[in-house]
């Protein structure tokens, strides 16, 4: 019925269609597995963080309470010593001062690692304390608003550490005088905004070489939160940072 040539053409076209089908199948299959792998990796990341944060909570509490008590105990015992001369008195005083400083340093380390209040009272109280600490020791004013009740403890830890890192950066680098810090729950999402009126930075340079541990932590925690980060900054114009994540 068909001429020889036509048959060959049809056969060729048929063959190409078959090849196309195979390639499409290959692509679909590999994309499917890739997605699964990404989800699997995310789960693993979450589990790793969970473990890490728990460890930190434990260490911070132990560190401060345990070690701090021991150092203070030394101080108490030292206070019972009755120095017989000026020199002894000076040495004693020096020791007590050093102990005082040690306790303070300890407190700062433990607090930075994981504040106890986060676990006890929740995100709002923890952030309030963090901000109070910041406004007390610097000339920066912070407008803080919290409208997101019901965030799970695990998410709270991540948000807290992200905020801690960002505020730390603001204090250290931005020379800002005013910070607006909002956490709001809108329509199944939680939106965290931190805006400062500081000197800003070069966004491209920053994103390219953001190998700084702090920013990397923020990114990884944001990944675990399945959050999207928006960053707008210009040298001299301040910085706008927003992170938006699903509520559940």
């Amino acid at each position, binding site marked *: 019925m068909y001429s*020889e040539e036509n*048959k*060959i053409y049809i*056969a060729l076209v048929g*063959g190409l269609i078959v090849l196309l089908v*195979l390639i499409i*199948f*290959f692509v679909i*299959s*590999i994309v*499917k*597995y*890739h997605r*699964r*792998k990404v989800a699997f990796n995310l789960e693993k990341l979450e589990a790793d963080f969970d473990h890490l944060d728990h460890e930190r909570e434990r260490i911070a509490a132990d560190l401060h309470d345990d070690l701090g008590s021991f150092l203070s105990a030394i101080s108490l015992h030292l206070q019972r010593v009755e120095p017989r001369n000026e020199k002894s008195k000076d040495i004693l005083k020096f020791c007590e001062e050093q102990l005082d400083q040690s306790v303070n340093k300890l407190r700062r380390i433990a607090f930075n690692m994981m504040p106890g209040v986060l676990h006890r009272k929740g995100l709002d109280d923890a952030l309030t304390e963090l901000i109070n600490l910041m406004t007390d020791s610097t000339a920066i004013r912070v407008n803080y608003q919290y409208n997101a009740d019901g965030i799970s403890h695990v998410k709270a830890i991540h948000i807290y550490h992200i905020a801690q890192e960002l505020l730390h950066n603001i204090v250290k680098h931005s020379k800002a005088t005013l910070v607006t810090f909002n956490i709001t729950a809108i329509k199944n999402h939680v939106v965290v905004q931190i805006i400062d009126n500081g000197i800003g930075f070069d966004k491209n340079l920053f994103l390219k070489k953001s190998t700084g541990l702090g920013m990397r932590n923020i990114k990884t925690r944001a990944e675990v939160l399945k959050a999207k980060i928006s960053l707008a900054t210009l040298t001299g114009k301040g910085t706008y940072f927003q992170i938006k994540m699903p509520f559940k």
Partner: protein
Amino acid sequence: MIARPNHRLTVNSMNNYWLRIVFNYSIIIAAIIAIFRFKTIMADYYPFIFFIWLGLFNEILSLLLIYNYQSNTVNSNIYVLMEYLVLLWQFYKWSDGSSKRYYWLAAFGITVWITDNFILNTISDNNSIFRVFYSFIIIFFSIDKVNNLLIFEYGNLLKHPMFITCITFIFYYGFKAFVESFNMVHLGLNPVILKDLWIILYFVNGTANLLYAIAVLCIPKKIKFISPW
């Protein structure tokens, strides 16, 4: 796994006869290795081992039938159905999904086989429809498995038996489907070219058999359960 030449294989066509013997019986290497390793390897791979032994059995059977009855088409047709079902079973064992889709494919395959061998032709004909069909099925499963291994497996892929066998399947069944399709569609090509294609298929078959042997060597051992006390 056995390549069937387009023309009847007679005692007279000695030229490619010895070729065929050598390449097809290379499966015996894999079969012997399998006998030695059978007890120690994981049960997930048993269908593949049966696949190899089935192939060897069919080769021997073909030889006997050719000497006595001049033809091996009937047993070949039955053999390909069994090959299909055994490989389907193996892919099921290699997956962690439900068995539903495998049952459906088995049923559909049997339907195609019956159609090919009883309705459209007879069982003593060289029937290619089913062969093309099941070749594609095997290819699809193999591609999927290879992708799975690419993304999820750690360690040396080249020594992974699933990877070796599935890549081999893709090449062998790919070429087989290509060659068999010329049997389905008559394009009026020079018969010499077709005969050459079949000879190439013998080569491919021989290589595949060797690769199967390597795969059997690479199958991991059973995990012994260690008692906690």
